[in-house]
């Protein structure tokens, strides 16, 4: 009797589970294809893929503040938003391209545009009136170039992520310095003087932290400071293994192994807290978001943060960022372009930057209250003319994944800087010639 009851219950539960699954699956509606509707030139449904505006705050900004403004101007356009993360953006774009379901407007990073433009995924915005000349007045040249491929514009910048030097002035003053370093010699001397070790040799404070950001971005900042470039002018070959590149990598390797300014493992890109905030570093190469992190964790330190470009043969400052692109296959190109231009326009771009604590790409936003109230963002904008970006060749996403292991191999002394960069250059060249 009890076996029969159990059996009956099991059967009923199985049927219920199967039914529930079927009903749930059937209840989901399918996404209709975008179609151009009547009622005006700019109309239709456009899909937006974005790694920014995430979370409740970001969504509220986009859907409750920005898109209503857009709809006021373009009432016949409907925007569907697909939120993703930067970490998985590449997978999202790759599967979209492979399946042919490419979002009408896509946000992507600096260095990403080239590959997708070469594969014919992105619309040539120059053909649609967004030319390099039309952007030059609004952005610095290097930022405009970040959205270009083969002489044409494929992307419009919205926000920038910058890396430069930041010093804790309270710690510098304690050691007798009243300003950040202005050359590599000064940087080395101050880094050594500001480093503190315990009696048993344990590192307590690094004079110059180079480990709390991605090794690739750290190397690129130093490479630009050494006057080097990632690739040759015509993008036909790597240039990061030039004398400048080797000098840059040798400098950081020596900081660790000769000057003992920082120990491997002392910090990492995934560290809970930036060592500048915890007082475990006196100077560092860091991201502009340090300001917002400090605001949250230790606002009393904000006055002590002093940004500086890492001055070598050239000013060393690196920028990445987020750009808006448009799909070549968009069924509603006018609506897609309208959305792209709207998101990159001053008001929405400023709001997006403010929400993430990033650097606006538009030069005119230098005078905004947000920029004036964020010392690191303001510094970044004031020095954008001397900032350089990563990317260049269409194979950049493939090449960039190889830079971190190469830099780490040199830092761990598994290879000399020259060997590490030459091997990396060979890998990059193979990818570029493919």
């Amino acid at each position, binding site marked *: 009797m009890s076996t029969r009851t159990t059996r009956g219950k099991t059967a009923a539960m199985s049927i219920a589970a199967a039914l529930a699954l079927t009903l*749930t699956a059937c209840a989901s509606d*399918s996404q209709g294809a975008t179609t151009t509707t009547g009622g005006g030139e700019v109309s239709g449904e456009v899909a937006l893929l974005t790694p920014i505006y995430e979370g*409740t705050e970001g969504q509220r900004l986009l859907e409750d503040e920005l898109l209503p403004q857009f709809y006021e101007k373009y009432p016949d356009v409907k925007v569907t938003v697909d*939120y993703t993360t930067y970490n998985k953006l590449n*997978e999202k774009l790759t599967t979209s391209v*492979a399946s042919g379901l490419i979002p009408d407007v896509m946000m992507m990073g600096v260095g990403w545009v080239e590959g997708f433009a070469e594969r014919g995924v992105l619309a040539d915005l120059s053909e649609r009136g967004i030319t390099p000349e039309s952007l030059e007045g609004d952005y610095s040249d290097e930022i405009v170039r970040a959205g270009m491929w083969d002489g044409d514009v494929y992307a419009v910048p919205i926000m920038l992520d910058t890396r430069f030097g930041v010093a804790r002035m309270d710690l510098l003053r304690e050691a007798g310095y009243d300003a950040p370093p202005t050359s590599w010699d000064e940087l080395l001397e101050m880094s050594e003087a500001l480093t503190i070790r315990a009696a048993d040799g344990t590192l307590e404070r690094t004079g110059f932290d180079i480990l709390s950001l991605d090794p690739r971005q750290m190397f690129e900042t130093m490479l630009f400071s050494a006057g080097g470039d990632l690739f040759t002018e015509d993008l036909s070959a790597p240039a990061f293994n030039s004398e400048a590149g080797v000098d840059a990598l040798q400098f950081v390797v020596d900081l660790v192994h000769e000057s003992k300014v920082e120990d491997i493992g002392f910090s990492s890109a995934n560290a809970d807290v930036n060592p500048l*905030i*915890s007082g475990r570093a006196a100077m560092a190469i860091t*991201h502009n978001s340090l300001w917002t992190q400090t605001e949250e964790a230790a606002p009393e330190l904000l006055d002590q943060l002093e940004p500086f470009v890492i001055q070598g043969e050239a000013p060393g400052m690196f920028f990445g960022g987020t750009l808006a692109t448009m799909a070549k296959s968009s069924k509603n190109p006018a609506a897609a372009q309208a959305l792209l231009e709207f998101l990159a326009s001053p008001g929405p771009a400023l709001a997006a930057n403010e929400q993430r604590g990033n650097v606006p790409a538009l030069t005119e936003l230098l005078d905004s209250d947000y920029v004036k109230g964020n010392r690191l963002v303001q510094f970044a904008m004031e020095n954008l003319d001397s900032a350089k970006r990563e990317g260049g060749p269409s194979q950049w996403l493939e090449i960039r994944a190889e830079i971190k292991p190469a830099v780490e191999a040199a830092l761990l002394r598994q290879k000399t800087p020259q060997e590490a960069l030459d091997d990396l250059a060979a890998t990059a060249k193979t990818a570029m010639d493919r």
Partner: protein
Amino acid sequence: MTATTARAAMTAADRAANPRTRRARMRKKKSWQSRAILNLLLGIGALTMIVPFLWMVVTSLKSPAELAQFPPTLWPQEWRWSNYSEALRAAPFHLYFRNSLLISVGHTVMTLTLASMAGYALARIPFKGRELIFMSFVAMLMIPTYTKIVPQFLIVKFMPLFGGNDLLGQGGIGWLNSWWALIIPGGLSASAIFLFRQFYLSLPKELEEAARLDGLGEFRIFAQIYTPLIKPAVATVGLLTFQESWNNFLWPLLVTTRDDLRVIQVGLAVFQQLESTSWHYLMAGTTLATIPMVLLFLFCQRYFVEGFTHAGIK
């Protein structure tokens, strides 16, 4: 001679007279020592396992200012319970939680049903090509998940007669942006089939023969005779499937574009921006996200451990 001295003298005499007792005592002492060492080692192992979990909970109760301190504090100076409510407000977690639960339960039910049948067939029903099919399943275990993502995505997108697709799978979006895409592809795995097969293989053939003599058919032998004997396998596969499904992040992100179909892991990613992480919120959200798994493990612990021991899984 006092009583104590007499007892001591007798004990010494006993010891001298009875070497067996002495050996037994020695063995007892040795066994106590080895048990103490074993317990110590297991205790250290258990502590090592639980410390990250405790650290997560403690971190979820600290303020950003406290998290910035070095050396880090062990115990929160100020218990910030509000981190939990604030974290829950950062994304529609109730929705994500429901979706994760539906998908995980769906995957678990499907896997238990289908994988146990497949495992039974491979273990107990002789048919031509059985070994080849089994080896194919074993080979599937070697394929990294990442390499399967794009082909799997294309299968889902070109699913005929769904999402506006025609018979050839053209013209629409197939299963994309639907519960089908979230549930069906994860509904069966080669590893689950493999585990079930190993369990069914370990059961005696005599049971099957007796059942056949009693007139039971194949399905009833599977459902009423053998499957009730492999509860540890059911618990193990069920828990592993639920856990994998609960922690899945990439697939739900890829096959959906609508926020109302997103899962809890996608919600947690909100706290990890490119250059900064809100650790206090991330740890609060993660603590909440682990609760279903912890509860499930507590309820199925006995079978789960048995299953692992039996299958030799580490």
